[in-house]
């Protein structure tokens, strides 16, 4: 569709408030050759029960239904992998279902869990995700990932997903980046920021202390993308538990309100037709009329330069939660930085900056925990966990890790998860001597974007301190 009816644009309604009560995650790494997937899932679940001072057995008593995010069955050579994990978590005979929406799988699993609670079907639901891509040779792994593109029209072309994806980056780079050295530098700043933040995260798989030059000089994957512009491919698990109000306060004194919405767009980028830009609450009619003039070639929307799914997910979620301007109304975000350039595209899709101005979010320093220019707290820090570039991308777990991280900031317990010496030791990782807290001080509201590949699925999750809601129920 390229025109949407009022019925389709109706703002989603949760029939009762839903709360995130706890979240947890495992260690993330490139490979866990001597660990079964269930061991990582149990690690994530146990972290969630520890977080609310319960044993896993105690926390399990509350759970009524389970939503599992696991994208790539064919990697694990195991259909119904969700049933394996469900059994190993000892949650039978509860109803459970697997969710698969590519890179957005974690967010989508949470989408399902929230709806189950909002509808009254369950008072407490578990969303748990994982991925493991280390159990096949790398080139076969590339082939398996390319099977997430159209099997007849795209996969035979190189069996390499990057090829189908990076054409979007190329177009954005030429049209909106104008191939400027300064834009290239801004892309690199994102990689430096996120890999640097990952250094403060014991769970993170790809921490690095690097410079803009290191990024610009790293090997080319598909020009303009270089190795250090790209996200990690990780193994690990993450989870979150959502409840109705009564159950939430039985589990914890500090549950967080959760809103979540989803959007989609064609699997093949090829099929994207032109349309009018759907506007977010902080945008005005006609504001994009001259986009093609300012950026020659940029008049095609969403074309190759915008992710309609992200825009639509944000549209629903902002209206649900009352967010008007994300930069003003939110305190911290975790975005799906699959590539430095797609991160910039997302700033525009979700209204942190208008279309064509995404780079400004980095260049002003707003996206940093501490603004490197003013040395004061950034206006809207992005990806303090390190994101997909620095922390992890274990597909089915990623969206849930992001939601957990936003939660830790609002709970003001980020340090407790990322600082303890014992955790660094247990994970076999060396805590940096210059470890610094990246807790966003006074964070009351945050957002997480979970995004699939070329933008086929996107979820937008908003968490708020229940005393700091924007919109009355």
């Amino acid at each position: 569709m390229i025109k949407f009816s009022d019925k389709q644009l109706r703002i989603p309604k949760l029939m009762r408030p839903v709360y995130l009560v706890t979240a947890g995650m495992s260690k993330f790494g490139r490979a866990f050759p001597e660990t079964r997937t269930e061991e990582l899932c149990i690690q994530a679940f146990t972290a969630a029960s520890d977080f609310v001072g319960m044993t896993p057995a105690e926390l399990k008593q509350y759970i009524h239904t389970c939503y599992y995010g696991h994208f790539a069955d064919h990697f694990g050579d195991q259909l119904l992998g969700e049933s394996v994990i469900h059994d190993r978590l000892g949650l039978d005979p509860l109803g459970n279902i697997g969710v698969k929406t590519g890179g957005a799988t974690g967010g989508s699993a949470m989408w399902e869990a929230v709806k189950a609670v909002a509808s009254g079907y369950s008072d407490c639901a578990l969303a748990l995700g994982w991925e493991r891509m280390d159990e096949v040779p790398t080139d076969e792994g590339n082939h398996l990932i390319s099977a997430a593109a159209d099997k007849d029209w795209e996969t035979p072309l190189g069996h390499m997903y990057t090829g189908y994806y990076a054409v979007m980056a190329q177009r954005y780079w030429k049209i909106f980046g104008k191939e400027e050295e300064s834009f290239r530098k801004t892309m690199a700043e994102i990689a430096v920021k996120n890999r640097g933040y990952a250094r403060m995260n014991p769970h993170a798989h790809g921490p690095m202390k690097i410079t803009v030059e290191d990024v610009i000089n790293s090997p080319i994957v598909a020009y303009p993308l270089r190795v250090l512009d790209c996200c990690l491919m990780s193994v690990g698990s993450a989870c979150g538990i959502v409840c109705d109000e009564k159950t939430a306060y039985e589990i914890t004194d500090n549950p967080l309100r959760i809103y979540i919405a989803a959007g989609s767009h064609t699997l093949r980028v090829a099929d994207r037709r032109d349309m009018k830009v759907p506007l977010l609450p902080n945008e005005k009619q006609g504001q994009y009329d001259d986009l093609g003039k300012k950026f020659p070639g940029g008049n095609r929307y969403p074309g190759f330069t915008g992710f309609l799914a992200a825009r639509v997910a944000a549209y629903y979620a902002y209206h649900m939660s009352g967010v008007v301007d994300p930069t003003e109304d939110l305190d911290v975000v975790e975005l799906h930085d699959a590539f430095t350039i797609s991160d910039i595209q997302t700033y525009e899709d979700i209204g942190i900056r208008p279309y064509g101005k995404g780079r400004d979010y980095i260049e002003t320093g707003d996206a940093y925990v501490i603004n490197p220019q003013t040395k004061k707290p950034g206006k809207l820090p992005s990806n303090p966990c390190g994101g997909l570039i620095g922390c992890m991308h274990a597909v089915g777990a990623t969206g849930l890790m992001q939601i957990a991280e936003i939660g830790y900031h609002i709970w003001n317990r980020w340090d407790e998860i990322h600082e303890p010496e014992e955790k660094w030791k247990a994970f076999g990782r060396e805590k940096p001597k210059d470890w610094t807290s990246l807790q966003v001080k006074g964070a009351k509201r945050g957002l997480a974007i979970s995004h699939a590949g070329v933008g086929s699925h996107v979820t937008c999750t908003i968490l708020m301190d229940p005393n700091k809601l924007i919109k009355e129920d």
Partner: protein
Amino acid sequence: MPKTDEEKGFVDVVNGRYKPRGVFHIIEKNQPIFNKDSGKLAGVTNPRDMTYIHSYGGEAIFFESLGKGKLMATRCDNDKCEAKGSIFEPFRIYCPDCLRKATIVDITEKAQKMAKIHSFIITHRSGAFNTLPKPIKFINVEFDKEVVTILMSVLSVGEPEIGKRVVPIFRTKDPTYTIMDLMFVLEGTPESDLPEGFTY
């Protein structure tokens, strides 16, 4: 090692069903995986030789036409549909708006005269089972206003650049009946420079 004809699997449709003939999987023994440092068992390999069947259905004519040097697309001709007149390439059996069966149209000439590079990427990497020479030059091809989509393909000869004119080429000798029978070259490429088996 490529399989001999005796080791290959073929499929026909007979009496409305897929009927396989030949060899479909050669069994290979699994191997244990040991930790080289501790000497302990970590797991096993599970090698497997699989053949999938892809049903083309209403798209079959697109793939069959490539080997005949023709680029087929579809157009919505439904008077009651807002997308009326839109041409879809990739070929869509049904119009995505009205879900009426779209009309099959030949856009070979349009492609020869109008095709341009909308975006591209050059990659030196590929996945298992890739048969394209590297680096692979992925291109996205825009046609004219009537064609509302942007086809993904590969530039076989020449260096890609946004806006450059390209022309389709077809594997008319020994077609594979896959999307690999269609590629593009820069306008003006002499026929003698086309890859083996391809013609304009």
